């Protein structure tokens, strides 16, 4: 039986058992429901959970691990000369066997394959039966256990609540599991990468061309993985983005929070938020279709040689994307500066701009710095704009008119399309991912710390 049908049957059993338990409770209580510790519905829920949870968990784990276990067992049925094959030939044979199981056969299959195939089929059907049987027995035991415990003093509600609380805790642990998953998956591949290419070469090398030849004797077979050009490219584009986003975003925030009247605010703020809601792929297309050709044409008429994949185009558009981010964060920060500071400054005869520049901005500075750092981390991690508008060739340059590449672009280029999971190319992408993760994480932790500390100061 398939997992879905097993689960449906279990659900049915759990519902039937719960209804039985409820009617049992009602019978036992008679006219005095209040004599029971828990309401009939709590007994219903208790029976349901006790029946469904263990059996469903067993069924799911069984189905997930089934394939691996059976495959290991089937290898045991292979003839001895095949089991004695070296590892690489063995994996080839396994692939052949897998194909055979999937019905892809070239010519006449070997007799041992047919025999093991039959063994496989019977094992799968046995396993399915086993899963069905075990989970059904567990479900039955669950119903029996729950119903047998029904009595007026039984604290069904407390038990149900404990189970629900357990579920809530598990859900909040998902966030931690995600972080662990990210760190482990990126770290694991990176360590394997650094075993082949030294970490110093990766971090300080200035030549990036991640092409690995198929055969060892091919010319230029060793790719080089010096990531400095990627780091400088990322920095260049982020710097351009920030030099657009910081002045525009900050001035917008100041205008909105200090000068604009209620009416202007209610129109302008949502418009700024539209900029924040536009998907990055749209910005990328805008950069490639409109901004880059515009810059290239105007550059040519000024006698400048502007590449069609210039860092400038990607940077400007990334800056536009970040404007609302900076302006909304700074807006919050400026608004949380206490009114008394403003009143004091006005009372001393300062003009509005003097108040802003000499009182509010210094007071809000830590918060604004935090916002800018968060924005920088965003710019570094931004992918689609640079994939679509920046170049692929790693070039070590500070000229914004030339094309540069970034860490995220290289991750995408290395991982798109067919890849083998063991090649240094793929692992290099994970090493880049690790670098990206470490940098953005440091920026985020520091920025969040600054913002939080700042908030506490005036709360």
């Amino acid at each position, binding site marked *: 039986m398939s997992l879905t049908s097993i689960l449906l049957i279990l659900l049915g059993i759990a519902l039937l058992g719960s209804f039985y338990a409820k009617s049992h409770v009602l019978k036992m209580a008679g006219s005095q429901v209040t004599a029971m510790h828990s309401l009939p519905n709590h007994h219903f829920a208790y029976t349901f959970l006790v029946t469904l949870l263990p059996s469903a968990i067993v069924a799911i784990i069984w189905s997930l691990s089934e394939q691996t276990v059976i495959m290991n067992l089937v290898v045991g049925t292979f003839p001895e000369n095949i089991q004695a094959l070296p590892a690489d030939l063995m994996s080839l044979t396994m692939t052949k066997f897998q194909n055979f199981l999937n019905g892809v056969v070239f010519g006449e299959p070997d007799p041992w394959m047919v025999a093991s195939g039959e063994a496989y089929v019977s094992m799968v059907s046995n396993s399915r039966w086993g899963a069905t049987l075990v989970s059904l027995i567990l479900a039955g035991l669950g119903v029996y256990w729950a119903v047998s415990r029904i009595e007026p003093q039984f604290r069904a509600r*407390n038990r149900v609540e404990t189970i629900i*609380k357990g579920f*809530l805790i598990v*859900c*909040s642990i*998902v*966030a931690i599991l*995600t*972080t662990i*998953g*990210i760190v482990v*998956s*990126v770290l694991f591949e990176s360590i394997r990468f650094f075993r082949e290419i030294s970490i110093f070469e990766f971090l300080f090398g200035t030549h990036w061309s991640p092409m690995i030849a198929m055969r060892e004797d091919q010319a230029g077979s060793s790719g080089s993985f010096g990531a400095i050009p990627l780091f400088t490219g990322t920095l260049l584009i982020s710097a351009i983005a920030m030099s657009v986003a910081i002045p*525009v*975003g900050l*001035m*917008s925030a*100041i*205008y909105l929070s200090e*000068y*604009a009247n209620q009416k202007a605010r209610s129109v*302008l703020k949502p418009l*700024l938020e*539209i*900029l924040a*809601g*536009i*998907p990055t*792929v*749209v*910005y*990328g*297309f*805008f950069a490639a*279709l*409109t901004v880059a050709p515009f810059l290239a044409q105007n550059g040519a008429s000024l006698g400048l040689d502007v590449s069609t994949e210039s860092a400038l185009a990607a940077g400007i558009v990334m800056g*536009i994307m970040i*404007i609302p981010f900076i302006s909304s964060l700074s807006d919050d920060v400026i608004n949380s500066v206490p009114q008394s500071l403003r009143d004091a400054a006005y009372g001393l005869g300062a003009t*509005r*701009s*003097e108040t*802003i520049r000499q009182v509010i901005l210094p007071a809000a500075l830590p918060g604004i710095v935090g916002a800018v750092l968060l924005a920088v*981390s965003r710019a*570094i*991690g*931004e*992918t*689609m704009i640079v*994939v*679509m508008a920046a170049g692929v060739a790693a070039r070590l340059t500070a000229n914004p008119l030339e094309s540069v590449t970034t860490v*995220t672009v290289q*991750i*995408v280029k290395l*991982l*798109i399309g067919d890849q083998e*999971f063991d090649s240094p190319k793929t692992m290099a992408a994970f090493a880049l*991912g690790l670098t*990206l*993760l470490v940098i953005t994480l440091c920026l*985020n932790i520091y920025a969040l710390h600054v913002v939080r500390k700042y908030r506490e100061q005036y709360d």
Partner: protein
Amino acid sequence: MNTHASAASATEVVQQGLDKRYSAESRFKIYGILGISIAMVFLFILMFSILSTGIPAFSKSKILLPFYMDPEVINVEDLADPAAARKINLRKIVNDSKAAFFGATERADKRQLEEVVSTLAQLEVLEHIRANPEDVGQTVELWVTADDEAGRWYKGEVDETLPENRRPLNDQQIEWLKRLTAEERVKTTFNDTFFQGGDSRNPEQAGILAALKGSFLTLIVTLGLSFPVGVAAAVYLEEFAPKNRFTDLVEVNINNLAAVPSIIFGLLGLAVFLNIFGMPRSAPVVGGLVLTLMTLPTIIISSRAALRAVPPSIKDAALGLGASPMQTVFHHVVPLALPGMLTGTIIGLAQALGETAPLLMIGMVAFIVDVPQGFTDASSVLPVQIYLWSDSAERAFVEKTSGGIIVLLMFLIAMNAMAVLLRKKFERRW
């Protein structure tokens, strides 16, 4: 006398300083206005460039051509059976008919006709002849789809001033197109092909339905997982968690996850879901899982804010009447916080809908022609489809890309409008 003079000069000094300060004031205000106007101008240019290139994607040119339904090629009995009908040599019918109409006898001329009539014409002819089998042996006038380059010419997007070898259409082809216009054999209709079917190498046949369906399936998975898990986590952290190092850790974790670059989540999906768990590549279920992990922090943070907004008096009243903490939370606090939680979820889903980078990592960049039928079928999603089209060489894909973006933005606007409505309708000030 002396004091009077110095007083006058002091006022003068202050006066002079005041002028300077006032002009500094107005300059500063202008910077502010400049900042906000630059942002608005960017928004306007962005929208304008997308709309102006994308609107033509919703219309297409059709041309009226006579087709001779050659009885030697079309076997009437084959028409009833779809499998046999597919084997009819429609290419010959279309090619012969258009060659006859335009008087193209040379091989090179016939080749040039491929830029005029789309290969979609074969399907359109088949459709017609299956509906009207009695037309076999007749010559029928049919509206068929023009090729992408011809379509661009009719929309006025081909620059005729360019030298012939740098233009997608040569003089001969433009001559033919002009003849069709003169004989009133051209019309512009709504581009229904764009909303049917999947990707194609031919721009005039490329559709967005497969990507839309893929996005829909992916979002269903995301919604189904992220809403319950996010709400449960928020309820625990806000209502039950003791204040200790562990919950602090969870909290810091969630805030950091919200700022982790999305591409890293793609790496996680590739390493864990594809390579360790062996889930299918390009499948909506994997995309949904990755996007769930990505939107979870957003949902948790906004759900916690919604829970915090419920006044403690409600809780106190329920507890005072003897409800257990669990009953208090699930019977009173959560229902009151639900609109806020839903708003946060919709906004999180809108982000997920526009997300591209992590989905590239798990192979959702495949070339998908068929509309996906289930959660494990290979599929694409809207933003990835847009990325793929933007990468294509044919000029006509530019308008498809913008058209796709317009569709995507429509959905985003609809989702955000829903969130705003929900907030307006159910938001309560206590």
